[in-house]
């Protein structure tokens, strides 16, 4: 592992993103627009907006970073640059860390912007600290990045990579408790949801929004999210092969 290479990689990925201002603009503005839309559709049910608004602040970054990462990594695989890097003195971890740093930085910007907008203009309230919401948003973004790196190994075209989002993230979103509280689901689904990382993302954000104290349950959610991120990164590293067929 070499911090110089990880930092160089992060800078390179950020420069690539800068070359695509439309993507950057969409990344930053789409969550803001969707959050405003949520406020609109639940105009006469402020309680519902209050319940789903905060968790969504953290779930947007996860989905967008998942998509951006899986496509960027797929391009790296198909353009031959990954193969070139694999003949160079670069550890797989340097590459993964570089991606995590770059997309973590974008996620911080994205999470901060949409949170400021929601707390400032949409009257969304959190019992806990708004900074904790942004921190969880960044953690979720890193989880999305890790999953994106992992699934890019199973996609051979950009069409496939895009389809992984509904296939991989939508079920998690449906079962996370955002749509229906988990205890009201069929028991089989509730058990299944215990194994899905987004469940803990929703849970953690919901806890921050409803209580000011840092509880053990919140710590457990955060620990699971960190564990899932590291697990996905390790699996992702295993899919980066120096040799191919």
């Amino acid at each position, binding site marked *: 592992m070499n911090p110089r290479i990880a930092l160089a990689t992060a*800078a390179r990925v950020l420069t690539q993103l800068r070359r695509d201002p439309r993507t950057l603009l969409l990344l930053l503005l789409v969550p803001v627009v969707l959050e405003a839309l949520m406020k609109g559709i639940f105009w006469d049910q402020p309680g519902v907006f209050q319940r789903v608004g905060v968790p969504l602040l953290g779930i947007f970054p996860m989905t967008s970073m998942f998509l951006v990462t899986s496509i960027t990594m797929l391009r790296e695989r198909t353009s*031959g*640059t990954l193969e070139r890097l694999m*003949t*160079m*003195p670069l550890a797989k971890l340097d590459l993964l860390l570089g991606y995590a740093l770059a997309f973590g930085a974008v996620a911080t910007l994205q999470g901060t912007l949409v949170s400021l907008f929601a707390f400032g203009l949409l009257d969304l309230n959190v019992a806990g600290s708004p900074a904790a919401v942004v921190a969880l948003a960044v953690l979720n973004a890193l989880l999305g990045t890790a999953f994106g790196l992992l699934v890019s190994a199973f996609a051979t075209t950009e069409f496939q990579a895009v389809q992984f989002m509904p296939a991989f993230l939508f079920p998690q979103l449906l079962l996370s408790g955002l749509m229906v509280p988990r205890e009201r689901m069929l028991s089989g689904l509730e058990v299944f949801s215990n194994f899905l990382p987004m469940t803990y993302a929703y849970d953690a954000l919901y806890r921050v929004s409803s209580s000011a104290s840092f509880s053990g349950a919140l710590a457990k959610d955060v620990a699971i999210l960190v564990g899932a991120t590291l697990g996905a990164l390790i699996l992702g590293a295993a899919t980066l092969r120096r040799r191919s067929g």
Partner: protein
Amino acid sequence: MTAEGAISVQGLRVIRGGREVLHGVSLEIARGSVTGLLGPSGCGKTTLMRAVVGVQHVAGGSVTVLGHPAGAPALRTRVGYLTQAPSVYDDLTVAENLRYFGRVYGVAPGRAEEVSAVVGLTSHLGQAVGRLSGGQRARVSLATALLNNPEVLVLDEPTVGLDPVLRRDLWEMFHGLARGGATLLVSSHVMDEAERCDSLVLMRDGQVLAAETPARLRETTGAEDIEGAFLTLIAGQEADV
């Protein structure tokens, strides 16, 4: 180990897409030489080069580079590889590409300018690679392979699509590097480039037909040029079966 050649391939077998595409290739390449790798499309040149740089799964045999097994971590700073299709970031400029790969190698930032001058791209440093012509993109990719002053340089069709003047300059550069002690393995479709090599490896259908100096090859086959020598060898091979 020191007296050994730069690249040593023994009984290399490679299976790609369920088919054996290299059937027991053996080769010795001397240090400080330019070796041409020639043969028809699909004969296995790229596959052999991938095995030499250690990115190809092999089914049997061995590949040794500078005394290490191909792809060993110790080789990653000492080997340069130009892939057949340019492998650079289209959305970055020439300078940004070279600076990034240079940082991965840990070379001085000034190397980016030096190698871009070698391939004649100094005036395009600030241009996005995606907006360059095909030959210019190929040269950015070539410059990247030169960044770390590699001791072994594996170049897959470095001169395809380039004009005669630039091709001559590049071949002079290859020989300059070899005089400096580097070992070059260069694949080509173009038979007239073969004459410029210190030694030649002729391949066909995943096998080595001959590995000789251009002069010896013409002598043994009685042909006038390398193209003729190649055709004679094929005719001989077909008569054998």
